[in-house]
């Protein structure tokens, strides 16, 4: 048996992508500081902080953490859509491969993994109710 067999798959992958994504959000926000635009650090700073808090609760994924993750991912996706529209409007090449990977595929993957990570509440079936006492 290899070393990682006991991990739950969606949560592990979700955690990996979120850590990388949170770091990239933080780094890209810091780049604005280099240009002397500290106000631009506000949104990536909040998003990074939100993701860090969510990553710490990734094993349970409470409702607030799901909301934070969804909000960040949808913001990234909407921004990518605006960028795509701008490129089309300005008669430019469409999104580059790396942009597609980090701004489209990654958030879609996170949203998908988030859905799979949430364990549905156990609803007793009729069979369980009938035979549950055995």
């Amino acid at each position, binding site marked *: 048996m*290899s070393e990682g067999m006991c991990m739950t798959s969606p949560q592990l992958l979700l955690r990996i992508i979120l*850590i990388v994504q949170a770091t990239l959000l933080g780094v*890209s926000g810091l780049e604005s500081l280099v240009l002397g635009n500290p106000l631009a650090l506000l949104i990536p700073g909040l*998003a990074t902080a939100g993701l860090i808090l969510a990553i710490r609760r990734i094993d349970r994924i409470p409702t607030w953490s799901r909301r934070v993750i969804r909000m960040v991912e949808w913001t990234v996706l909407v921004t990518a859509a605006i960028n795509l529209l*701008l490129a089309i409007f300005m008669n*430019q090449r469409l999104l580059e*491969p790396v942009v597609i990977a980090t701004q489209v595929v990654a958030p879609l993957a996170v949203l998908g993994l988030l859905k799979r990570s949430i364990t549905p509440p156990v609803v007793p079936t009729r069979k369980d109710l009938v035979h549950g006492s055995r």
Partner: protein
Amino acid sequence: MVPVDQYLISPLYRIIDEHQAAAAFLVIGALAFWWARKASPGTRRAHLYTAFSQLSPGPRTATAAMAFSAVAHLGLVFGHEPNLLTLGYLATAAVMAYGVRIVMTGGRWRRWSAGLLGGSLAAFAIATVGGTAPDQIAMLTKLAELIGLAAALSPEPGARLARAGTAGIVIVTAALSISSWAGAFSSGGGHHHGEVPPPAVALPYGVDRNPTADEILAAAELHRRVVEALAPYRDPAVAAQAGYKIGDITTLDHHADNPDFKKDGRIMDPAYPETLVYAAGVNGPVLVGAMFQMDELGDTGPAIGGPLTVWHAHDHVCISFTGITGAVSPLGACSLGSVAIPITNEMIHVFVLDGAPDRFGELSDDWIKQAIGF
């Protein structure tokens, strides 16, 4: 032709010719994966796919990353002239393929994946910091390797070194981003790009030649006229009266636009510069020069002084409601809340400070500081 193709831009935002074969290999690799997935049960193809899909998520992610890296590096071999570097690509492809085999046969996946993927990322960081500008294929491969490495470093729940693993992922991600920026700003000099513009600067294609005597005279005359026309604007209050949005001058290259002079049909008229450039001096603002802009996207500026007066545009610029927030990062992002502008109109600076080493190009902050007695 799309406007950005009129310009030479940083390799960071395109796939360079030498890496087209690697792009093709990655597409073929994806198709091969799909082909294996569709294979009939009992065949060798189906066996390979089943072995992969039965891996737990950590090793599966690391295996996918190593396979991606192997295919990309194999493609690089075919895109370059045979030399020591292509031998390195071939060796990387071989060891990554070996890593895939080790993990799929139940070997110590964390150790192998971390070693191989971490080694490849470290080699990339050394190359970029050493002056090689990365392109889209390089960044895509490194992104895949980063995810694979993150899987290898990702701790087991409750593991003793859980925090160290997480810190490792953060450090490697930040280091990849920073080293890629370093390579992109090194202006080439790497193994195959030659001289390239830095990120977000788009230069027109042209012949590298010396200016003619007429062009030198024309450039000098243009400069003289601009110096004369800008003289009143040494006082920012006069510029503000003329419609320039001065704002707070706190940097060495503060650009003050005049919206009335944009799209006014006057092209490089010294009396109507679209933008004035000020530096924050010890005793108040100092007029550094002006910036002229073309009215429409894709219009080419008049090179009055030939190679002395080369216009440029900016590509992949990030802007938000707070202004310019940077350039699209090597890993494809503007800071969240900013959108990416693919290309701007052409523009040219004319500097009026006495003794400017480059009157139509770019002035370093150090030179400006010295010139204004900062």
